[in-house]
Each structure stands twice: as C-alpha cells, then as structure tokens.
C-alpha cells in the first residue's frame, strides 16, 4: 500500500514549549488512521503540522520533515497554500462561512482562488454535496445561508467544501465532538465511504469511535508517539503498558 504521508522526526513548538517530540509515522492512502490520546497530548498540533496550519499561529516553530508523496512540504520552495489545497481539514466545530450561501460555501475553495466557470462549479458543487451525503437535503435551497442548517448538516457542508478542492488527504479534528449521536453516526459512515478515495487522519477523544472507524491507530502521550499499530491490535492487545492503561480507562 502506498504511503501518502511520511513524517520524519517532527518536532513542534509553541514559543519555548515543545508540543511534539520526534514524531515518526507513516500514513497510508485509502486507509483511516486515528490519533488518540489524553487532552494536551499533541494530537491536534500534529495534524496542524500536516497541513501547515500550525505555523499560522504566531511564535510557533516546526522542525523535521513531512513528506507528501515523497516531497517535503516544509521545504523552502513549497507554497503552504498549495499544501493546504492538497490536504484538507474538517474542524471540531462546524465552521461554514455565514456570509456565503450553501452553494458558495462549497465552491469557496474554488471561487476564492479564481476558478469561476459556472458550469464547472455547478458540477463540482453537486458532486461534492453528493459525496458528503448532503445533496438531497439541500438541493432545493442552495442559496440559503451556510449557517441555516443543523449542526450535523453544517459539518457535512464543511466536508463537502473540503472535498470540492479535490485534496489527496483529509484531516478530521474531532469532527463529531459537537454533534448528536445520529449525526455522528452519519459522519462516521461518510468517513468509511471516503476512505476509498482518500487518505484520512482522524483525531478523536472517543476511543470507541477510533475503534469503529479506523484501520490504524496512533497513541500520543505528552507530545510523543507511544504506539502505532493496526486498530484491531491496539484495542485487543496493545504492546505498550501506557497504551493499555489509557484505553482501559485507568487514566486520561
């Protein structure tokens, strides 16, 4: 299986505080990799280093390499904006743009980058909304504001928006944390569908979710990668005692 992303000796800092210590990990394509760990262990920082969002916060530093299809995304000749188009992200709280309609929200990544051909956009918007299982619910109100939908629908809108720019990798940062169980189930189903075409990384607090949805699981603790293995083994026979203590609820 192809390695879409290879992380080598990744270190990340907030000012003087080191948030990630020497992370080495491979993310495979067409697979879902879950990142679990207690609060503050560096999971969100990690995925923000993958799509170069970490550096947007002032006073931060990143060292090490993140190879996307073999090329380091942090090398000097790489444009972070290009990277963020190839590596999409869905956030914890759904964040559709309130000033844009549903249609424009989905098309935002394209329209705001100069792609304006109407027939192209129509097609892309419809296929993205179909892929995120939202088309039937919104096809008659594409002009309504992006925030006129329910929480679960808003999150699917954000997913459609991320899909519209045709990324290679999709990062999910606790995507169901603010959703009800039914919306959560819908999004989990969606992720299982999406993995047929994308490499997916999902950060989650919910271990049962990680167990349900992912093929590989990485356990982070205090900025370090403690264990990385296929999900089945992590949850039935973890190798590291710390991993076992976390997943059995003895701490965290």
């Amino acid at each position: 299986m192809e390695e879409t992303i290879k992380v080598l000796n990744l270190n990340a800092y907030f000012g003087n505080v080191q948030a990630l210590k020497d992370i080495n990990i491979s993310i495979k394509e067409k697979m879902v990799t879950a990142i679990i760990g207690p609060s503050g262990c560096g999971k969100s920082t990690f995925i923000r280093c993958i799509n170069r969002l970490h550096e947007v916060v002032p006073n931060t530093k990143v060292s090490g390499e993140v190879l996307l299809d073999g090329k380091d995304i942090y090398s000097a000749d790489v444009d972070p904006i290009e990277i963020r188009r190839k590596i999409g992200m869905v956030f914890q709280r759904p964040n559709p743009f309130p000033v844009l309609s549903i249609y424009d929200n989905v098309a935002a990544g394209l329209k705001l980058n100069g792609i304006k051909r109407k027939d192209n956009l129509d097609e892309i918007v419809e296929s993205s909304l179909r892929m995120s299982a939202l088309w039937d619910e919104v096809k008659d109100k594409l002009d309504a504001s992006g925030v006129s939908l329910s929480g679960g629908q808003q999150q699917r809108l954000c997913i459609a928006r991320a899909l519209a720019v045709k990324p290679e990798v999709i990062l999910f940062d606790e995507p169901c944390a603010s959703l009800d169980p039914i919306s959560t189930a819908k999004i989990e189903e969606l992720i299982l569908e999406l993995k047929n075409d994308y490499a997916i990384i999902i950060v989650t607090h919910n271990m049962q979710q990680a167990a349900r949805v992912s093929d590989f699981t990485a356990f982070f603790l205090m900025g370090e990668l403690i264990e990385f293995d296929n999900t089945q083994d992590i949850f039935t026979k973890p190798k590291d005692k710390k991993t076992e203590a976390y997943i059995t609820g003895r701490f965290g």
Partner: protein
Amino acid sequence: MERHLDQELADLKKELIMMGSLVETAIFESIEALKQLDRERADKVISDDKIIDELENTIDEKCLELLALQQPMAVDLRFITMEMKISTDLERMADLAVDIAQRVLELADKPLLKPLIDIPKLAIIAQEMTKGAIESFFNLDVALAGKLILRDKEADALRNLVQQELLDDYISKNKKTIPRAIPLLLIARHLERICDHATNICEDVIYMIQAKVVKHHPEKLQEI
C-alpha cells in the same frame, strides 16, 4: 485510577473460581461413587448440577452486561470474553460428571466387571488437570497452563488403553459382559473429555494473559 469496572471484574473472577471448585467436587464425587458403587452419591452429583448450570447463566449474563455497558478494551476485553468461554467449558465438565454418575447408576446393582486400575489413574489426571486449569486462571500462571496442555496426551493414551482392554478382553470375547463393559468404556470417554475441556481452559487462560492464540496451534506453545 481505581475503576468501577475493577470491582466488577474481581467479582466475576470470584464467581468463576467458585464454579470451578464446584466442578472439581462434582468430578471427585462421581469417581468416588463409581469406586463405592454408591447410588446416593451418584444421585447427589446429578441433583447438584443445577447449581452449576445457574452459575454459568449468571456469569454469561454479567459478562454480556459489562461488554454492552462498559466497552472494555484490551486485557479487560480478553478477560471477559475468556471468562464466558471458560464458564462454558466448566459447565460441560460438570455435565460430564453427571454422565459419569449416570453410568454409575447403571452399574450400581451389578458387581464390577473387573477391578478398576486404569480408570482411577485417568480420573486422577482429569482431577489434576481441572484443578490446575482453575489455578492457572486464578494465578494468571501461563507456565502452568502450558504444562497442563501437554498432559492431555496422557489422558488420551489412558483412554485408548481402557478402550482397547475392554473391547479385546471382554466385549469381543463374551457378549454377556456388554451391559457392564459399555458403561466403563463410556466413563473413560467422559473422563478424557473432561481433560479436553481442561485443556481448552488452559488455552483460553494463555490468550487472556498474553493475547497469544495457542488453540488448535500446539506448535505455538513453545513461544509462551
């Protein structure tokens, strides 16, 4: 961090140990009943089986509840699922003790066909394996479990011996011995089956502790 689940798991363990000791007793009593040709003892084994059956139900229900409500992972998950399997094996072993008791009832009004030599030996192996299996569960003793698995061969050999002797020396020579020979043959079979179940328990214990599957893979025993 002490968890509510830890208390539940400790209680489950106690129940299984208790079930185990009841099964040990049942096997012992059934063999004593055979040695003494004691109808009363045999009847008691049969009637006491109900308690063991109930225990299996209780344990299974409790395990299912914990699986549904607590979503246990890793070692806890292995513990609970193996506990369910071990309780099934114990219940079968108790049923086999009942079978032995029923054979005793069939033999009780006649004199013994021959002095019992090999059957008691087989019975001792069965009892030791049963006791050992439960001990390995209680003490989380992988080494003991491994040793016991290897003893199963002995039991198989003894059963074959008894079978051979009864077939060759009695059944084939004199049809009139059949009503007294068959029950003895069956008792040997029952005892050997008890050893098989004890072996299952040991394999489950190894999986529970080390997450290694040695069931149906005797070669893996070297690795534990």
